[in-house]
């Protein structure tokens, strides 16, 4: 493919942060042919987002192109006149963004936002614009398209918003679609929907896609070419099959290795009776409070039951809105069920006298950035739970804190540091340490790795395994991603819309899913499997995948 045939041709691109800042992108080169799907894969800081912005000429001010070129249909975008560039944007190159919450203007109706692009780039009359918008909305599965046009973005869910944004961008039939991590903020089922839609729409128009992602397995299904980036440089590129079968660069191998795989499980200790019993629990959330009337309650969890044996890891999996987080919080005492019982070591946890539960049951939260008090240093954060240990001297506490810090993979020198000085992965280690410092019997982990990079996720999962073998705690591992739990879960429970729809040992669930919802989740999970010779391939899935 010569540069002149290519739709988009990035040649030795260099992007600098400010006139003498460091290089965000260093000597990047790749091409996209018409109709081709090229994925830029890398973790945070790899420069992939900046490269994507450069491809549409929207680099945010401190960054500027200081070397190389980005050519669209042969013309250098950097040297174009602003009016010409604006003519290309939207009409020839479309872009969809990551955060569904802020990607649509909250004060304009959907109809206005969809019409805007068309009014700018096409000659259609208002009636024609409206007709096309309605057709497109129907196409993406909106039930009441008329009403949608006059509604506001906040009235739709995240997945819907992404689909609407996709639809409004594709209405202009661009030759190239740049998708900047469009599914990262969605749960796995919504992700699949959005991806399916994207492929459908682009196939119809013959649009090429430049897909930015941190998840190699996600792009493996449909990308033609992959460019792996790290710290601004392209470490490897080629067709997807070649990359999977025979990855050359060390970093690519690391990324592939980071995908969780089924392995040997931590053996369970002998036990006489379950550690935790959840029995027919129902949980309600108060709805919006009206001034005069009484508050209405919405049932979020319906008659959920499960058990956890000592030392066992039970994975609780489901999409957003399935009630899994609510149930997890009830187990640790942050929510109160309105029906049913939760028994810890045989004793109902709602009984006021049951302090044992409070001490023995701890939680790891999802967001490493807000689960640590910014005003306390690491030592204080880890020492705080020890306040409730009656017979520890100050010396013993210090020792326990130091011991825990070493166990989670940080050193003793972190005692004086503050959370904002640590990276996301390091903060999550501190959060794990805080949960474990009292050697509890049960740990609830609420999506502990979702907010982290792939390679960091792998490290944290390894840490988890090691700590479980060492400390022997049971774990309720909540996740929306089946792939992550495949590695460490002894048993899996699947939740959908507040009900536990399926529960069983790991291998059974993954190899022989019964419930349709479980199958859907599996279909959305990582499809890669390792081959004998060291390469990877897309695994034949027990469930037909419509991609």
């Amino acid at each position, binding site marked *: 493919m010569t540069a002149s045939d290519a739709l988009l041709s990035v040649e030795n691109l260099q992007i600098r942060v400010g006139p003498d800042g460091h290089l965000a992108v260093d000597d990047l080169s790749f091409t996209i042919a018409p109709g081709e799907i090229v994925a830029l894969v890398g973790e945070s800081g790899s420069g992939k987002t900046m490269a994507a912005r450069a491809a549409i000429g929207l680099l945010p001010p401190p960054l500027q192109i200081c070397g190389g070129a980005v050519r669209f249909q042969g013309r250098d975008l950097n040297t174009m006149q602003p009016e010409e560039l604006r003519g290309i944007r939207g009409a020839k190159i479309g872009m969809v963004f990551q955060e569904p919450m802020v990607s649509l203007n909250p004060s304009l109706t959907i109809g206005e936002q969809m019409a805007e692009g068309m009014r700018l780039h096409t000659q259609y009359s208002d009636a024609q614009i409206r007709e096309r918008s309605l057709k497109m909305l129907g196409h993406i599965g909106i039930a009441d398209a008329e009403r949608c046009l006059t509604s506001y973005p906040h009235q739709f869910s995240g997945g819907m918003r992404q689909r609407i944004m996709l639809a409004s961008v594709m209405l202009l039939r661009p030759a190239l679609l740049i998708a900047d991590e469009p599914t990262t903020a969605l749960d796995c089922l919504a992700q699949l929907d959005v991806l399916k839609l994207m492929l459908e729409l682009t196939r119809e128009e013959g649009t090429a896609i430049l897909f930015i992602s941190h998840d190699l397995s996600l792009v493996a299904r449909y990308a033609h070419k992959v460019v792996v980036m790290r710290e601004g440089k392209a470490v490897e590129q080629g067709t997807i099959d070649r990359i999977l079968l025979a990855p050359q660069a060390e970093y690519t191998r690391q990324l592939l290795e980071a995908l969780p795989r089924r392995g040997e499980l931590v053996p369970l200790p002998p036990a006489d009776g379950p550690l935790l019993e959840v029995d027919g629990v129902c949980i309600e959330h108060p709805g919006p409070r009206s001034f005069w009337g009484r508050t209405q309650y919405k049932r979020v969890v319906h008659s959920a039951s499960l058990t956890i044996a000592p030392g066992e890891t039970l994975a609780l999996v489901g999409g957003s809105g399935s009630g899994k987080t609510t149930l997890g919080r009830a187990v*640790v*005492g*942050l929510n109160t069920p309105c029906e049913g019982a939760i028994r810890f070591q045989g004793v109902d946890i709602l009984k006021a006298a049951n*302090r044992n539960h*409070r*001490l023995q049951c*701890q*939680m790891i*939260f*999802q*967001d490493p950035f*807000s*689960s*640590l*008090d*910014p*005003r306390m240093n690491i030592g204080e954060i880890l020492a*705080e*739970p020890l*306040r*409730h240990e009656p017979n520890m001297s100050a010396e013993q506490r210090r020792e326990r804190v130091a011991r825990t810090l070493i166990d989670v993979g940080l050193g003793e020198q972190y005692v004086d540091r*503050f*959370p*904002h000085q640590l990276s996301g992965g390091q903060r999550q280690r501190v*959060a794990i340490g*805080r949960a474990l410092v009292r050697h509890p019997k049960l740990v609830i982990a609420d999506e502990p790795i979702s907010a982290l990079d792939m390679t960091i996720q792998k490290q944290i999962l390894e840490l988890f395994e090691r700590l479980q073998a060492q400390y022997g705690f049971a774990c309720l591992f909540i996740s929306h991603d089946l792939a992550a739990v495949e590695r460490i879960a002894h048993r899996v429970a699947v939740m959908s819309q507040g009900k536990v729809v399926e529960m069983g040992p790991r291998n059974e669930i993954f190899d022989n899913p019964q419930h349709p919802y479980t199958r859907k989740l599996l279909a959305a999970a990582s499809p890669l499997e390792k081959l004998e010779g060291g390469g990877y391939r897309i695994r034949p899935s027990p469930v037909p995948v419509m991609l």
Partner: protein
Amino acid sequence: MNKPLPASAAEPGALALSAPIRASQPWRMPPLNALIGGFLLLLLLVVALLGLVWTPSDPLSLNLLARLQAPSAAHLLGTDEYGRDVLSRLMIGAHTSLWISILTVSMAIVAGTLIGLCAGFLRGWVDRCLMMINDALLAFPGILLALGLMAIIGPSLYGIVFALSLAYTPSVVRVVRGTVLSLREREFVEASRVIGNSELYTMLRHIAPNCIAPVCVLATSMFGWTILAESSLSFLGLGVPPPAATWGNMLAASRPYIATASWLGLFPGVCIALSLLAFNLSGDALRDRLDPRMRK
């Protein structure tokens, strides 16, 4: 006259959390607003403290022979209608203004924080009652409240302090309560509950310290409001009673002589403006410093 703004109207970012300032950070050149603001603040403080112990001439002594003299070597900023040295009176005025501000702001912050913490912590009907009273007080613009009180008890320094702190406490309550409510649902607060800490402990150890930052920013604004309010009241003749020298009543007294002795109307105003500038700039610098987005 400016008026306390409820938290909803405060500039975005005002409720941001902060980490404590550590000595290990490399020293960088402070931004311009911090420099100028800090300098002016220091100047104000120095002049006010100096005025306590020394002034170029006696600010209270009348000297009708030397009345309405333009600025000269003997009287650097001229003399007023009674022959008193303007510079000396300005220095005394600085002292009065600062003293009133410190008293007012301290009272408002202490009262407001306590009430705000209670309202945010207890919630339920206690919260709703407190907020209703709070909103009603907020509807009483500060000056009106002060005016009303002056009508009852007559002008006095402590009367002004009381009236103004009553007027500004609701703003503090709103900011503190707002911060508490938004912090209550943060994960590190929930983590504290999960560990087994009581609600009270969580409140005092985790929530209250994170309220310090927004309150500090509000405090710098309140200093400015108080100085403005106090000088406005003095201008209207309802401030600290004479013969005390305040910038406001100096300005008021200058009105009949505006054509003949214009310097009388110039210098007190400059002092008020510089003080307000000092607090505005310092408040800006503080807010920028505490905004987590601005920190690396």
